[in-house]
């Protein structure tokens, strides 16, 4: 038994990737929706345990990360291990909440299977050993998410439009990423992260363009403004499970990949400065545009998408700093963003208009609690993860002399006060309109994951030592060296 456990621990990354993949097959074959959900819960939990164990060993106990050298091209570096654990854990929570999204619908097994396939892709992207694997992982996750989004069409035909928008975005981003990867491989002599870490770029111009295209593609998929033209339709009309999965897992995985790629790019002397400037410009634009869009949003899920764009801008600014403190701040920010997005998307009422939130505090106190925690985190209220992320970011900015970057982060926080505060005001200080007053606590026990996320966010905000240590260690072995 101990020997088996040891083998499992040595192949934790592989297990984290394969468990949801196998779970997807089982869910697709399940005779009823409830069996599919059980398969999803089991598979996602196994993946989460494996990924968290890996992260605990690699990031908090300072053990050298185990590396799988054959089979699937996996490579464990700091950012990958951190993001892998985050995505797998949040994936498990969504799996436990999945019955709330897809109860009794005839296509439930397929929806759950597609969610698990997407989860496979997002986790695999974190552990990808080369750019081609990374690309394939994202392709798998994107296609699965498109299909999952389209499954909502039975209840609302607009879901097809949402799926189409995501398909177009994924198609364009995929094509751009392909060209980017090819150029990076051409300039660096290979597409593996190992070769990138030691690369002396033979063609810096091509490499620069390649990185630029790759960053653009990943940013577009992550919903970074102004490349987020597709997100409003997808978040607003897509099937709830697909939106929750993409909003939390997809965005975290994509931003993680972007951070990872940037870590390799900034060490290349010919590229470092250019990459930094490009990321910074994109980050500032995303903060500004995303914040303005979120302030004007009239739909909770769209608001979540725009707020995520603003927060993603902060991540890009942190990454652009290129320092270990900046990368650590980016990871904390990604963590906070994913937690807030999950709380907002799981606990959102079925009707997404902001008016549906009026008086929700009385009708659905637990869902309101989760939404409030998410809103407070977005606002950067003290003792939340959002605050911690902002603090680390401002601290890194001030430490590196990037005062205006700190200013941008504060602008994002101030904007978040408006849109986050508006959510709280509607939930607790307005009366429900007649159309919405019959909407009560929607999902009973399946709301538990959202509450777990909300409380975890508060607890980790109060004592984030473990998270900070993990983020610091992850940033110290960005390109694979043990801390």
């Amino acid at each position, binding site marked *: 038994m101990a020997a088996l456990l040891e083998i499992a621990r040595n192949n934790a990354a592989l297990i984290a990737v394969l468990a949801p993949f196998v779970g997807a097959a089982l869910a697709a074959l399940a005779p009823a929706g409830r069996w599919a959900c059980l398969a999803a819960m089991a598979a996602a939990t196994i993946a989460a345990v494996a990924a968290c164990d890996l992260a605990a060993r690699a990031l908090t106990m300072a053990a050298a990360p185990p590396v799988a050298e054959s089979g699937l091209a996996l490579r464990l570096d700091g950012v990958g291990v951190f993001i892998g654990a985050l995505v797998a854990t949040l994936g498990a929570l969504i799996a436990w909440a999945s019955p709330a999204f897809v109860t009794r619908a005839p296509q439930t097994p397929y929806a759950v299977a597609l969610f698990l396939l997407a989860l496979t892709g997002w986790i695999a992207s974190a552990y990808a050993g080369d750019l081609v694997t990374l690309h394939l992982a994202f392709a798998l996750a994107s296609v699965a998410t498109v299909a999952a989004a389209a499954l909502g069409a039975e209840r609302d035909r607009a879901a097809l439009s949402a799926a189409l928008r995501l398909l177009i975005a994924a198609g364009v981003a995929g094509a751009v990423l392909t060209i980017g990867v090819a150029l990076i491989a051409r300039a660096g002599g290979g597409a593996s992260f190992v070769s990138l870490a030691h690369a002396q770029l033979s063609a810096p111009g091509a490499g620069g363009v390649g990185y630029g295209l790759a960053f653009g593609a990943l940013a577009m998929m992550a919903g970074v403004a102004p490349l987020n033209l597709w997100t409003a339709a997808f978040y607003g009309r897509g099937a709830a499970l697909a939106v929750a999965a993409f909003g939390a897992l997809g965005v975290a995985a994509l931003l993680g990949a972007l951070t990872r790629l940037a870590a390799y790019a900034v060490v290349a002397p010919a590229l470092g400065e250019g990459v930094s400037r490009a990321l910074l410009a994109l980050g500032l634009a995303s903060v500004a545009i995303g914040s303005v869009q979120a302030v004007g949003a009239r739909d909770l899920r769209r608001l979540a998408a725009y707020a995520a764009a603003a927060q993603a801008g902060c991540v890009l600014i942190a990454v652009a700093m290129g320092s270990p403190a900046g990368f650590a701040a980016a990871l904390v920010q990604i963590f906070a963003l994913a937690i807030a997005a999950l709380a907002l998307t799981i606990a959102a009422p079925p009707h997404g208009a902001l008016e549906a939130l009026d008086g929700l505090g009385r009708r659905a106190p637990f869902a309101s609690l989760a939404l409030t925690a998410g809103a407070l985190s977005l606002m950067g209220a003290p003792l939340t993860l959002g605050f911690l992320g902002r603090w680390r970011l401002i601290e890194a900015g*001030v430490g590196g002399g990037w005062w205006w970057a700190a200013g941008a982060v504060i602008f994002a*926080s101030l904007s978040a*006060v408006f849109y986050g*505060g508006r959510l709280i*005001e509607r939930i607790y200080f307005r009366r429900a309109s007649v159309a919405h007053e019959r909407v009560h606590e929607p999902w009973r026990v399946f709301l538990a994951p959202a509450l777990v996320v909300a409380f975890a966010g508060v607890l980790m905000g109060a*004592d*984030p030592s473990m998270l900070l240590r993990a983020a610091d260690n992850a940033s110290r072995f960005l390109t694979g060296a043990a801390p």
Partner: protein
Amino acid sequence: MIAAHILLMICLGAPLAQAFAAAAAPRPPGLRDTLQIALSLTHFIAACLLFGATRGGAEARLVLARPLPHVELAFALEPLGVLMALVASGLGMLHAFHSAAYLRAVAEPAPARMQAFMALASFAASALAFSANLFTFFVAIQALTLATFPLVAHAGDDEARRAARVYLATLLTASIGLLLPAIVWTYAITERLEFSALGVFTPPVDAVTLNALLVLFVLGVAAVGLPPVHRWLPSSALAPFPAVASIQGVAVANAGGIGVLKITTYVFGPRLAEAQIAAQGLMALAGAAMCAAALIALSKQDIRERLAYSMMAQSAAVAMAALIALPTGTFAAALQVVAQACAATTLAMAAATAHAATGRDRAADFAGLGRLMPWTFAAFALAAASLIGMPPFSGAWARLWLITAAADAGYLWAGGLVALAAVLSFAHWGPLASNALVGPAPPPEALKRPDGASILLVAPVIVAAAATAALLFLADPIATFLSAIWRAPA
């Protein structure tokens, strides 16, 4: 003898328990009000014992969390905080009696909600008073803002919601946009945020940085009401009377005053003298705000609006005194905080009593009401005299010390502005109070009930006015108590 750290826990826990009790047991009203009063009394007794323990040299520290490396969410005893907690808890206790009676008198539809948020505001003010470092201070300010925002929005109509939005936006924008960067900047420079009588900036910090930080810190504490982050004060005037007393008397305005005082005393300490350019600029701003607010108050007929602008003028005096880098300035600021808290709470409660008994809330309609409600309006007049700075009331001592400190520091112009503001304060309170007392008596039908206001509405006002008057004899003990700050070893 109860240990100091237990008393500290009670001081922080009692208002929280009060809030929980109001939310958990909204009915029957008798039980709810009894719990509110009993817990506020517990809070006050604990604060009194803590005051005695601190005077005897007791120390206590309560650590709740460690959210950042070298930064704790912690509370500690220090003279300024203990003094403010004592004042806030004492006034809070009187306000608990008064609000219970007021809410019944006006048949408030959601009394439990209002009491719960007032208790939360009291908790946040206590947390700010006892904050051991800048991080805890920031958390307490945010908590205070979020706890009082529902009080402003309490009426639930569009006007109240709009006012609440302005309130929230002003306070949060200042704290996130100015205070937070200042705190992070300080942390980046010094790697510490702990309050100390020697200040935080013990490592060498250049004068430009100190000046910039002083501006960010002082404007970041928007609760003190300096322009351009003062809009929350007029907005709070749309809240119901008990909420106005809580915001302008017991909790927020005091928290702003003590907040600025903590910043200048425990963050800058002796280094405040090196930030004199910013300090003088801010003092000029405070002086101008003091006069302008007192002038605007003259034009306001709604008694709550008049009180709001008057409080803005009073709070500006606190900021001005705190920025004078002399012990006399610190003492003047502390005395001003205590005096304005007592006087403002008395005024707000007296106006609330008049409103509950007669339905009147406009200054012009107060004429002659003192003949029907002599105790209430005697207390009103006494509190107004203190706010004006009329000798021998406590407000006069605070102004006297402020002018002395300004003269000692060579800022005669500041003393002149203080005197001008006192004249303007007289203009907006003096005629109002005298008209209320000696104006022609309105017909007895002006009272909703033939026997006037209930004893629970009047007694707290009288006790608060007595406390305002008693401060006349307490200036020296307060100075002795606070002297530990400026006697700290260099």
